[in-house]
């Protein structure tokens, strides 16, 4: 799609705006891995907002499914085994590294956090090497 980069930019601005609402109103980072990890840890007064956020994310997904279903297409022919390994690594790694693409890549870099800049460089480089060496190999 020739205009795919304009969609990417518009989507990016929306992501930046939503994270900004979270920051300005609730004083929090919109880091999805941290929100999920906190949601599966029961802690009174800190669990509900996380579950509600995840519900919002899912409702957003349902809206996409209705108005723009192609946006949820997964055209990769991956084995279930590869998906399981990928999921395990992403879950383990994002909690260990205290963040993912949203928390480190968007929110952290925006705050010029050195930790987030280092984390983002590492996970993008690791992703490049992973695609190069493992994609299609498992």
């Amino acid at each position, binding site marked *: 799609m020739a205009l795919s980069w304009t969609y990417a930019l518009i989507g990016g601005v929306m992501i930046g705006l939503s994270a900004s609402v979270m920051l300005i*109103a609730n*004083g929090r980072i919109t880091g999805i891995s941290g929100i*999920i990890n906190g949601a599966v840890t029961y802690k009174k007064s800190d669990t509900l*907002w996380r579950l509600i956020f995840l519900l919002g994310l899912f409702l957003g997904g349902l809206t996409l499914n209705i108005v723009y279903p192609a946006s949820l297409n997964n055209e990769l022919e991956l084995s279930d085994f590869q998906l399981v390994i990928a999921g395990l690594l992403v879950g383990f790694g994002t909690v260990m590294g205290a963040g993912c693409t949203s928390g480190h890549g968007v929110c952290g870099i925006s705050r010029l956090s050195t930790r987030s800049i280092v984390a983002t460089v590492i996970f993008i480089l690791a992703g490049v090497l992973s695609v190069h060496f493992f994609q299609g190999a498992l």
Partner: protein
Amino acid sequence: MSKNNLIALIVGYLFALGLGIAGMTQPQKIIGFLDLFSEHVSWDPSLLFVMIGAIAVHALSYQYVKGKTSPLFSSEWYLPTKKEITPSLIIGSLLFGIGWGLGGYCPGPALTALASFDKKPAIFVFSMVVGMLLYRGFDKFFPVKK
């Protein structure tokens, strides 16, 4: 519903729409970005534009809140304060990147894509939550500096 919870709902919803419009919920686009060395497919720069758009907006918001004593609907800030580059940060990000390249999903897009009712994001999300829980066990027995 409290104001904080309503904000969480709205932010989650808009965030998912942003991810979908940006193309981030299509793993083939992530792999197309990370596949720098490919000779047969053209590089997909989408992720770069997503990050430019998101960071440009969010960096301004951060500058705006910097001098404020508290957020609008909370009495305190919940922002990370750590500065040190630790082994945990490096190893964790490395493992995350490897998994990202394998599956083409990071946490937000995977959760959003659950709404396609396709089994691929479902398998991924289930495994991701298991991975998060496994880390807790690992951290108990082999603590690495966080």
